[in-house]
């Protein structure tokens, strides 16, 4: 459009990184790969993969001759005749990146989204055919990918629209279960066992509060750390009561949000008890998630919620070396209190997919792209070694034909994320995989926690894939995080500014009045159409 006015001035200096065209290898073997020898003779097909840098400094400073990318491309060139040009964008800017790409009609071959294709940015692009319909390609060349996900995923709005599939998903390892991180060393000191019932937790918190566990002569131990966003990392006891702020249930023909469920009142009441007893950090309403990490590592903290995979001795919070001010920190992860019925549902599981990679309709050889992604599920030994141990000579050595990989070597501590996650676009964060956990001294604990969480399951049903409803998009105060009516009420009750009953009932009334009723109607309609 502006071209009309500015065609005289425009030049082709704008960066359009197109995939270099090459002769595609004629022998395209779809799945389990023995190296296709004919592929080695021809130029491998190269496509551009624009993906998040996952906030990693290493990725930000990656050079063109990076050893991991080079190694990966070498293997994929030999085995299936495809190489990839990794172009990371800043994770925080992913939507701006998507928007500018779309607006300037400069979509790369493959672009990484968050969990779903149902983002407003893409509405016109999908309808207008700029995003490739991958249904047929997946059916023919992506069989292993199809098999890796449950059936209901392929029907969900995350990946499908009007019955067609768009893009290729990336696995969420074990659906990122959450757990409560507690201090095993403190439990040992106190002679307590790991908390199981609600009373156990209360006892643990009380002990932490009143005992000088780090021996500094001060009672500054914080039993439980919560932050102001009230996000999933704050949901310690919601599971016990069976309601979650982001969950819906289908009751008597309408969709009902847990947010206004009377049981939620009990949840809030319980947190108030904890707060009144001094078990929660009093910076709760001014501390953000970004600050929590530093707080945990630098202060004596009794419990907090986090993704289970970081609790092993090699994990970020499990590694005692990261706790600069304390000695002998021993982290254990547990899956929340058991209800009187004996169930233990801690936190909602993440969806089966962590991301979706959309393919541009202008990609020169989308079949090769799908084959490439499918290859990640193959039995390729070279690939498996790369994704677990890294590059030979750089991350590990071979002694007597056996691989000697030291997870605690500096290079591996620093760069494990790259070869176990970043260069594995299909399989998600492999640091949480069982294979990787086998190397962690606390690996069994983490594996058990994963198992427990998955076993406890998820009763969200079809609501699992429900996108944010239209009315809520315009009324962010109807959600549950920072800036919501729920958070306002929660804070006022916890701090005793308002009484629980009155505040909660007022909240429900306000929520409904300010658009909540519309959200309920929209959710019900969605559920009926998608169950």
């Amino acid at each position, binding site marked *: 459009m*502006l071209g009309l006015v500015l065609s005289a001035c425009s030049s082709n200096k*704008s*960066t359009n990184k197109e995939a270099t065209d090459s002769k595609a290898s004629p022998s395209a073997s779809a799945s389990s790969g023995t190296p296709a020898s004919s592929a080695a003779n021809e130029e491998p097909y190269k496509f551009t993969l624009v993906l998040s840098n996952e906030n990693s400094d290493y990725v930000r400073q990656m050079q063109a001759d990076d050893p991991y990318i080079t190694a990966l491309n070498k293997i994929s060139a030999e085995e299936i005749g495809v190489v990839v040009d990794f172009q990371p964008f800043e994770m925080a800017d992913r939507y701006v990146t998507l928007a*500018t790409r779309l607006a300037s009609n400069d979509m790369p071959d493959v672009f990484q989204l968050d969990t779903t294709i149902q983002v407003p940015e893409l509405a016109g692009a999908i309808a207008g055919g700029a995003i490739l319909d991958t249904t047929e390609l997946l059916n023919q060349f992506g069989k292993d990918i199809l098999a890796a996900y449950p059936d209901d995923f392929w029907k969900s709005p995350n990946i499908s629209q009007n019955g067609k599939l768009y893009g290729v998903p990336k696995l969420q390892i074990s659906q990122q279960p959450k757990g409560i991180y507690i201090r095993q060393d403190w439990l040992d000191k106190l002679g307590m066992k790991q908390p199981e019932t609600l009373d156990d937790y209360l006892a643990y918190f009380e002990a932490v509060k009143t005992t000088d566990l780090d021996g500094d002569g001060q009672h500054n131990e914080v039993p439980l750390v919560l932050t102001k966003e009230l996000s999933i990392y704050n949901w310690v006891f919601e599971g016990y009561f069976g309601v979650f702020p982001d969950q819906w249930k289908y009751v008597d023909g309408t969709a009902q949000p847990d947010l206004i469920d009377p049981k939620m009142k009990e949840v809030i009441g319980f947190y108030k008890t904890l707060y009144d007893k001094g078990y929660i950090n009093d910076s709760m309403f001014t501390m953000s998630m970004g600050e929590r990490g530093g707080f945990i590592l630098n202060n004596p903290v009794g419990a907090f919620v986090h993704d289970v995979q970081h609790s092993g001795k090699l994990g970020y919070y499990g590694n005692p070396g990261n706790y600069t*001010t304390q000695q002998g920190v021993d982290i254990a992860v547990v899956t929340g209190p058991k209800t009187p019925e004996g169930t233990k549902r801690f936190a909602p599981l993440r969806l089966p997919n962590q991301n979706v990679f959309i393919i541009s309709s202008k990609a020169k050889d989308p079949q090769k792209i799908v084959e490439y992604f499918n290859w990640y599920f193959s039995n390729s030994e070279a690939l498996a070694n790369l994704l677990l141990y890294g590059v030979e000579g750089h991350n590990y050595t071979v002694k007597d034909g056996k691989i000697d990989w030291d997870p605690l070597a500096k290079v591996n501590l*620093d760069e494990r994320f790259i070869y176990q996650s970043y260069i594995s676009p299909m399989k998600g964060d492999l640091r949480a995989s069982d294979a990787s956990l086998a190397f962690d001294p606390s690996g069994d604990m983490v594996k058990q926690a994963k198992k427990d969480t998955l076993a406890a399951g998820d009763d969200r049903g079809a609501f699992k894939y429900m996108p944010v409803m239209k009315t809520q998009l315009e009324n962010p105060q109807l959600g549950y995080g920072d800036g919501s009516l729920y958070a306002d009420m929660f804070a006022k009750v916890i701090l005793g500014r308002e009484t629980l009953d009155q505040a909660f009932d007022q909240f429900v009334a306000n929520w409904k009045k300010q658009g909540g009723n519309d959200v309920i109607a929209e959710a019900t309609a969605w559920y009926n159409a998608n169950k």
Partner: protein
Amino acid sequence: MPTFRSERWFQWCNGFFILAVSILMLMPLVHLLAVSLSAGEFVSRNQVYFWPKGWNISVYEYLGGQSRLWRSLGVSVYITLMGTMITLLISTTLSYALSRKYMPLRSLILKLIVVTFIFSLPLIPFFLVVRDLGLLNSLWSLMIPTATGAYYIFIMAAFFRGLSSELFEAGRIDGCNEYRLFWQIAVPMSIPVIATIALFHAVYQWNSYFYAIIFIRDHSLYPMQMLVREMVILDQMMNNLTGYDTSTKAMATDQLKAGVVLFVTFPILLVYPFIQKYFVKGAMLGSLKE
């Protein structure tokens, strides 16, 4: 009749007040400096106030070794100097023109400029203009699209308007054309305001990173604030999902942040004292209003 005593009393009170406020302003930076030079464990325990505890320069050693930091410093210096020159060029000429009552379409143009600062600039159309001009992924995109605005123009125009008209009339009698009137009369008489706008823009250019996010893809062209953003702001924004850089383990992240902020702020602080002398000079060259 002001007495000597009341004058002295006023001077002391005023001076004390100014000093107190100045110290208040200085404290956060002193605190940051102390944090950046302290040993990690004191920082973690929030025990550092205005003096370093446990002398430790590893933050600066680390930063000094980061070649991308130096490279981006070069980029920042370049776009600040060059960008300010471009800004002064465009702003002074236009402001001068708009201060002359005989400028054609003057009233209309002024009104149109008012519109540009009241209504905000939508981002995507702005991006598309820059793209269509072929400026993407070049340093020009950081210097030209943001070169000037109503703020600079109106301030400078007001100053130009206030210049005594006698000198211009004399110049015209001497046969100066507009260009010479501008360059040889108006500009030398307006050094304080030109210096001020130069300072404003230099600081703006030095501190900006927002447009670098959408216009620049090549990391080697990143200005320093982008790196600061990565180290300080984004760190705050993101959850700890991905692992960590153990080379900084010797220092608490707060220290690194403090060090980076000081590293980036220090150069631009040197500019103002340099500019200050122009504020005095102007007084010699004539009054602003008759």
